[in-house]
């Protein structure tokens, strides 16, 4: 019967099909096993400088004060990715579009706040004739102003002098913010100003036991920081740090007054814990930010601490 319908052929073909099928199934299983822990993203490497520059400019948002540096399709910081790609392009295509490469490199270094490298790249562009030269010269002037503020030495002997110089730096950055309003340098200047503001708070916090009313000054400093940089990408980080400081005060209070003893005033502890809690809750209730997970953990941790202290104090 089979032979009438070309049975042998049929069987042979069928056998071949079934073997192919098994092979495909095996390969599929193998592929699914191997890809379980690997990313499923498909990347297409750049072919030319145009691709590199397009990828770079597409993600290179200017407002680095409000937004973090974007990640490109590979998930790498777009500035760092651009530097790697530009190096590779230069190696594979020596002496081609040097000004474009150096200018792009300068921008990447600038956004990564490596002003020395950025200046070096801009200077190379300025040394060449071409459409980039004028822009490069302008940028060199701006970055030199940045460098002047950054290089201003900080006195190490007197803490008050140290604070004074930090304040002066803040003023200088503020002037640059005004001067370059509307350009990418405004945002960079804001980032630098923010860094100094945070450093001021850290300095007060570290030295709070040496200062009169050190705790109060630190609280004020944190309040000013979160008020001033409400728009910053680091805002929620600062709110968490502020909450951490209240927790530190609460723990200091526990260390100084045994919760099982009579000198311990639960109200003082609860007031500090409540202040920390309100700050943590503020972050924990914001959606779409990574700090939320940390804040939720801190809320739970504070609940545990308060519960323990309440039990001890009972």
């Amino acid at each position, binding site marked *: 019967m089979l032979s009438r319908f070309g049975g042998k052929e049929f069987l042979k073909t069928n056998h071949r099909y079934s073997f192919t099928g098994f092979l495909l199934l095996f390969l599929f299983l193998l592929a699914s096993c191997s890809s379980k822990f690997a990313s499923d993203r498909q990347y297409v490497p750049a072919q030319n400088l145009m691709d590199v520059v397009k990828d770079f400019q597409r993600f290179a948002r200017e407002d680095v004060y409000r937004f973090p540096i974007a990640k490109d*399709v590979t998930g790498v910081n777009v500035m760092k990715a651009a530097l790697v790609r530009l190096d590779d392009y230069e190696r594979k295509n020596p002496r081609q579009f040097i000004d474009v490469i150096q200018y792009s490199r300068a921008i990447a270094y600038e956004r990564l706040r490596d002003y020395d490298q950025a200046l070096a790249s801009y200077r190379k562009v300025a040394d060449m004739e071409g459409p980039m030269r004028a822009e490069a010269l302008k940028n060199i002037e701006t970055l030199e102003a940045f460098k002047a503020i950054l290089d201003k030495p900080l006195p190490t002997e007197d803490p008050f002098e140290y604070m004074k110089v930090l304040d002066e730096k803040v003023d200088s950055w503020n002037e640059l913010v005004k001067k370059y309003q509307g350009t990418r340098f405004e945002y960079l200047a804001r980032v630098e100003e923010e860094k100094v503001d945070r450093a001021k708070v850290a300095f007060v916090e570290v030295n709070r036991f040496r200062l009169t009313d050190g*705790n109060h000054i630190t609280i004020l400093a944190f309040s000013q920081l979160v008020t001033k940089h409400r728009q910053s990408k680091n805002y929620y980080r600062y709110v968490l740090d502020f909450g951490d400081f209240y927790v530190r005060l609460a723990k200091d209070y526990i260390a100084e007054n045994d919760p099982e003893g009579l000198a311990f005033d639960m109200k*003082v502890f609860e007031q500090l814990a409540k202040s920390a809690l309100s700050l943590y809750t503020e972050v924990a209730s914001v959606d779409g930010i990574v700090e939320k997970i940390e804040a939720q953990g801190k809320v739970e941790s504070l609940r545990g601490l308060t519960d323990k202290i309440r039990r001890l104090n009972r």
Partner: protein
Amino acid sequence: MSAYKSVVAMLCLSAWLATPPKPSAAQTGQELPDRILNPLPEFDPFDKPPSAPLYFPDDVDKRARSAMVAALTGETEHLAEDLQFFTDRDAQLKKERGTTTGITELVRDLYNNTIEDRQRYLAAQRQALSFTAMPQHKQLIESRLNNDDLNQANDQLRKAAQNKWGGIFNRMLGSINIANLMTGNYTSAAIDSAVQQVVAMTSNEMPIEERRALTLLNEHLKRYPDDPRNPEVRKKVEELEKKKRRVLAQKQVEKAEEAVGKRDFAKAEFYYQIASVIDPQSRNAETGLEEIKKGAKTNEQETKKALQIAASATRSVSADNQETSGLLYALTLRDEEKIQSEAEALEKKYRGGAQAEAARDARSVALEIKGRHEEAKKLLKQVADSSNAHERDRARALIDNPEYNLLATFESAHTKYKLDTVKYVLLGDDFLKKNLMLAAPLVVAGPAGAPTVAAANGIMMATNLVQVLTANPISNQDVIDKGVEYVRAHPDSKDASDVYSVLADAYERNSAYDKAIAYSEMSGRVSEKKLADLKEKAAKSLLQAAGKTQDRSAQEYYLKQILDNYGDSDTAKDATQRLSRMTRMENQGLRMTKKFLMENSELFGPEGLGLKASLFDGNVSNMELAEKGVSVLGDNEILLNLQTPWGVRTQTYRLDESTNNRFQMAMRQRNYDVAMADVDSRPKNSEGGLKNAPPTILAGQLGKKPQETDPETTFTLVREAGAPSTSRTSGADAKLQTEAERDPTSKYKLPPIQGNISASHFDISGGLPTGLWGEKIMVGHDQGSPFAGVLLPIPLLQGFIPVDFMVQGGAGRFAVFPKIRLSQDKGNDQELYR
């Protein structure tokens, strides 16, 4: 005669004139308000204080003092002598007068507490238990015996074993109908038991009883390091620790595997690492970490490759030539206009060619620089549909990239949420388990099992639907996170409006009305009516929150929030009234309702506030306290809410210092008594006593700080959000109520209802109120016919193996199912053993 008449008339006239005039109706009306406002001006609500007890110290008294001093200073020998004295004196008094001193047991208790050896201590407590006649003392000793760590640990381990084996037996016996045992049909029971057993065995849990036992055993080792039973205890601890480590590690591995399923490898690595820290011998954790590392290495290589420029053999060098250099410079300088013009020129020149697609892509970059993200994405989609392989693949990779295409990520999360919700309505959770369970009736009873399956499915779906409509168990957090991420990155894009609307709905579903209102407003599409509705809901939720908390400052905060943010809502009127009520004097201080005082009569009696008993006898004619009770205001004032024929009237009285002190002592004593009442049923070291009792009163003089604090640690500058501003009188501020008053719905609460689906039947059961013989009532469907039953405990077996019997009656049949009773952990500290 006429003279006589005249005299009579004169006498009548003078009598009329002498009679005082009757008050008019108007005059009566004028007097009434005084009586209403001050119904009993002379009324004194206090009884005379009890006279001080007369005190004549004798030998017994002296010895009692000596025993207390010896107990405090740890002089065991003296204490033993004192105990001997009291024992002898009791024997003597009993012989002579038939009475005793009454304090021997208390002295014995002091002595017993000095015994350090556990075995001797417990033996002494047991002996004391047999001696004592005082019920409260008996309860205290019983609680000590019960609270012994080792005894409790053993008890917990016994419960765990009972639950484990009881569970297995119940799964086996649950299908056996004793009434039909003679029929010999065990197939159904066997399949049913096997299915349930498999399901039960797949769960990877360590019972809470075992975890409690582990803690208690460690406590025992710490407290009695020299106890002779310790080697045995240590062995048990080791076994339990090993099991705990294994279970905890497995839990982390499960979380890691879930993360792998979602392709979140960073999260998976985190959980695998925790698992390997908990149990370094966990093979699953080790394998998982290795796989993750391998995957990470592959990803790293892929990324590295993607960061390289393609090899010269495959790349089109023509892209970087003099013709395109104009566009390249424009791109480098981020000159949007120049990019646009150069790209358009190139597109025109090379229409349909690779250069044209590259130029179109450049136009998309220009739009991106201008902040027109959605338009840029549209252009990119055109490139993704083009025939040029390189440009097409790059565009597709970009569109698929969640970092770039946040809108697609958001839309996919939204679609997934909707699908999950539908899936939940149709299948519920634990899909696999239920399917396994539902397949069993068909195996056991064939087509006859179909109605059971159908009925069970119907009930499940209806329940799921109700659940979704009232409080959807499917989380929409991912939708919210992705949506917020999108609008934060592209707040002014065309599609942002849609995303704002979805976010508003999602927040409304989560009862986060403030955010729902904000996003609705941002969407620009919300109607006035919808906005007003949201505001009303927001105000109501705040009002509910205020009603739920006992904390006065929190209540004030919530009510003020309503007035500040939703002043136009109807609820705001209610909030205003509540806020004004809170500021009234009778709502301040330490408030105790009449029912609470009657439940704790020591507080108002001669040993407490000294209020007259007639205030609580229900007779309004002799003055009655209103339901609202009394408020102790500060240290020297008490406010009484009195029930009068004209309604509740308040009256303030002076509270002298001695009465106040007496009341505070009575409060502490009552708190102790209440705490003692459930000392043997509460978890060890848990807080007992009166609910919401002010800590300042309970702490007595200890509440006052004895020393000046260091100025550096007085945090006067602490800032608090929403700190209350309403001034209040000093002193304790709390409201003491009975359990029923605190939660008026508690008496109407339905007993817990459970459902069960087994291979042969499904049922719904609920607890019966205490006092009835039965404990549970059940209705269900069994192999084609409905049934109803009641669960009866059989007292004869309770002391040995607690077995209950479910007696069921259905259409022309009678069935009896035995069931071993499992113990349930009722501690309120379960979180500590999770």
